[in-house]
């Protein structure tokens, strides 16, 4: 921490625990630290003070301390945060002693420093550079794109590569080769960019075994992202665009398309046929034993007689209208972003309404 404590500045006693680790020796230990710090400090400031004054061997990354460089991702009580964004005052007031550890899903080098190599490898696997799909713009000037069109990737462009989403990804924890929220969000940054001409190739690439359809939809990434990128939504946008482009061989896509078909025919999900429709008849047959186990308990409802909702024609009609109106692919998600962003804005509308009535 670089700002010296000013005279008469209010201070507080900060206690934290840090998981120390040395990948060379394999030694791992939970150490507790206590330090007097100004009330305005962040977790990063506290780490700096501890490193300066108590233990110079404490290892962590940092740079901008203003939530833009993405260096200081780490876990506090098991949840990934940016250390520079985490104010300590409320935590100290609550008497809580947070446990600080390295981000998850990446090998730990030392203490809070993880090996980012796998992270960057996945990033690079997305071919994250513009592949212009246009002839040179006239007079060598800029390609003309409306602000509205650029807003399609407004959120994905916010990503600072901090790794908080990757740290918490449940799918990646189970399947380490899953491309993951950060890489796929970067992929969407290009799929949604009007100037990029490689949409179809990208969607084909991203639809592989460890791509779009391996996302488990746990929404941890949306929850943890410190910049509001909403990677899960970026993945959903990719899925929508893939289906729109007819890139839907993946079981995940087939699974989704059966839901659509179900709503148009019986209204409710036609569960029994879901397995063969998703996995193919042969694979479904190989699941026979498993299916029988479920069937014995009545968990495999017979498709006949069909369980049909009332007025399913309304759903069919809506589906037709939706297709006519052509807001297909990621547009269906982007169209709601303005409204959902309002939930983040925390505008004092309620307060103002109260003021008006009194």
């Amino acid at each position, binding site marked *: 921490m670089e*700002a010296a404590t000013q005279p008469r500045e209010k201070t507080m006693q900060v206690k934290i625990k840090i998981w120390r680790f040395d990948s060379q020796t394999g030694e791992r230990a939970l150490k507790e630290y206590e330090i007097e710090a100004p009330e305005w400090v962040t977790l990063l400031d506290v780490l700096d003070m501890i490193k300066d004054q108590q233990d110079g061997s404490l290892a962590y990354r940092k740079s901008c301390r203003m939530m833009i460089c993405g260096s200081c991702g780490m876990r506090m009580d098991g949840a990934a945060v940016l250390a520079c964004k985490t104010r300590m005052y409320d935590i100290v007031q609550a008497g809580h002693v947070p446990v600080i550890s390295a981000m998850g899903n990446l090998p730990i080098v030392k203490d809070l420093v993880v090996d980012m190599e796998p992270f960057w490898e996945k990033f690079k696997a997305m071919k994250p550079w513009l592949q212009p799909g246009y002839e040179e713009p006239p007079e060598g000037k800029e390609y003309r794109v409306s602000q509205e069109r650029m807003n399609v990737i407004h959120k994905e462009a916010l990503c600072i590569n901090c790794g908080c989403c990757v740290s918490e990804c449940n799918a990646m924890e189970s399947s380490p080769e899953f491309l993951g929220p950060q890489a796929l969000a970067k992929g969407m940054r290009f799929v949604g960019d009007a100037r990029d001409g490689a949409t179809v190739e990208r969607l084909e690439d991203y639809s592989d075994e460890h791509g779009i359809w391996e996302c488990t939809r746990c929404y941890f990434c949306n929850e943890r992202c410190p910049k509001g990128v909403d990677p899960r939504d970026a993945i959903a946008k990719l899925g929508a665009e893939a289906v729109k482009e007819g890139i839907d061989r993946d079981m995940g896509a087939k699974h989704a398309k059966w839901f659509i078909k179900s709503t148009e025919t019986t209204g409710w999900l036609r569960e029994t046929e879901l397995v063969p429709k998703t996995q193919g008849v042969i694979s479904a047959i190989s699941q026979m034993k498993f299916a029988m186990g479920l069937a014995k308990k009545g968990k495999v409802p017979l498709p006949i007689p069909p369980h049909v909702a009332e007025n399913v024609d309304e759903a069919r009609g809506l589906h037709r209208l939706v297709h006519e109106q052509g807001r297909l692919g990621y547009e269906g998600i982007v169209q709601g972003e303005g409204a959902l962003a309002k939930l983040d804005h925390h505008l004092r509308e309620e307060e103002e309404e109260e003021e008006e009535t009194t």
Partner: protein
Amino acid sequence: MDAKHDVLVVGAGCAGMRAAIEAFDAGADVAMISKIHPTRSHSGAAEGGINAALGNASDDDPEAHAYDTVKGSDYLGDQDAIEILCNEAPDDVYELEHWGAVFSRTEDGRIAQRPFGAAGAPRTAYAADITGHVLVQVLYEQVVKRDILTYEEYFAWKLVVDDGRCQGVICWDLLNGGLKVIGAKTVILATGGAGRLYTGTTNAYACTGDGMALALRVGVPLKDMEMMQFHPTTLAPTGVLITEGCRGEGAYLLNAEGERFLKRYAPNAMELASRDVISRAEQTEIDEGRGVDGNVLLDLRHLGAEKIIERLHGTRELAQTFAGIDPIYEPIPVRPGAHYHMGGVDTDVWGLTSLEGLYCAGEAACVSVHGANRLGGNALMETITYGKRSGRHAAEWALSNTTVTVPEGIVTDAERELRELLGRTEGERPWKIRDELARTMHENFGVFRREDQMQRQGEIVAGLRERYRTVVVEDKGTLFNSDLTQALELGFLLELAQCMVVCGLARKESRGAHARPHDYPDRDDENFLRHTLVTWRDGPQLDWKPVTMTKWQPQERTY
């Protein structure tokens, strides 16, 4: 030698990456060294925009841009370098857009441009208030596309000089430990500024003037070192940046009495006057008791929630997180903070220094395009245009069949020095020296400077340098030893501080960011229309260099 390249770029921010891309495209074997991952570079924290006479918001042309820049520099800028910047800027910005930079757009889909300080026309192309972030991303994408080799988390410690040429860099491998020697036919320093010399700075922890110190230590002169820009709108206490873009969108600066005080200092341009003018105005208001807890107030309320959320979303987030203020409802308390170093390694218009094979570009360099004060939006432009130019020149020179030699002795000397430093157990921890340096620079070499304070600061820095000789690195290990690299960074800062003070004392006038209202309140073109030049020979030795003038004669500078 652990590796050898045609072009070695030290620092991977906007200037470094742009230089590397250019060198690659020119056919050179190029590599970058960076002590942090490239996208962590502080270029990414730039917010407001990048200047070019695109003419999208109004009629504009490069000459007008050049004039504003010359005037903004308080006539210390080298006009040939400035003209080059302004002429090449539009194409350089279009190139970024072609590569995919996510700019904000006008109604008719062109790159949006906003008004910025001291600019006669709105020419600051922007991406909301995260322009630096957007540029770092697009440049890194282009680096990845070309698969440019990057020695990531390698700390550049010394330049290798042999046979009158720069021949490479000695680094400390921060991630895994160990000294590494990377030979190169040309080296481009693109290591940014040195805001960490001050408490209350917009700069990242990484901004410790590494490249400038590296050059200084091999006898390369530094220019205009006394010129440190204090950005008018930074958050107390640590100096987090609140973009000039706020004022570009129409925000007001108020004192404790709710007065838009700039009408008394810059009645025409008001909040869009030049940064040095505004910082001085603010400091005066604060010093004369019209501040609020040592700040003035940046009022965005009248802009309305929609505009703030659309164009200044990052600003709102910063104000909420670090000041507990929502700018939609309350003004933001701000004060001047060390932000940008106009001074740096003396280069020509191709980024070449006085040492053959050594180049410098971006904030670390002093061409000089900014003279005594930089316009907002020109820094990002300089990184691109001069990054490109130095990359090309270095590549072309390197491709002309030269060898690389790294003398054995240089490496063993470095190893011995490192062993001595790491072996020391008795002494002082760096943080006390570091904090004292920053605090005293803030007090004695800030917005306003006085002879006696500067003299005292020179002595203080000398004392700190003496104490630094027994600094102790607690972490003796090899894995991610940032304790070591932070100690080495402090060494860089101390030498740069010594140079700055010497130059500050020598410039007996007020010009741009160097303000001496008590002893030399006026600009003295007759005696001081020239650059300070400092070379290290057992301490800073001062010299002078003339300013190149092409079209414009110095005029009185008012806004």
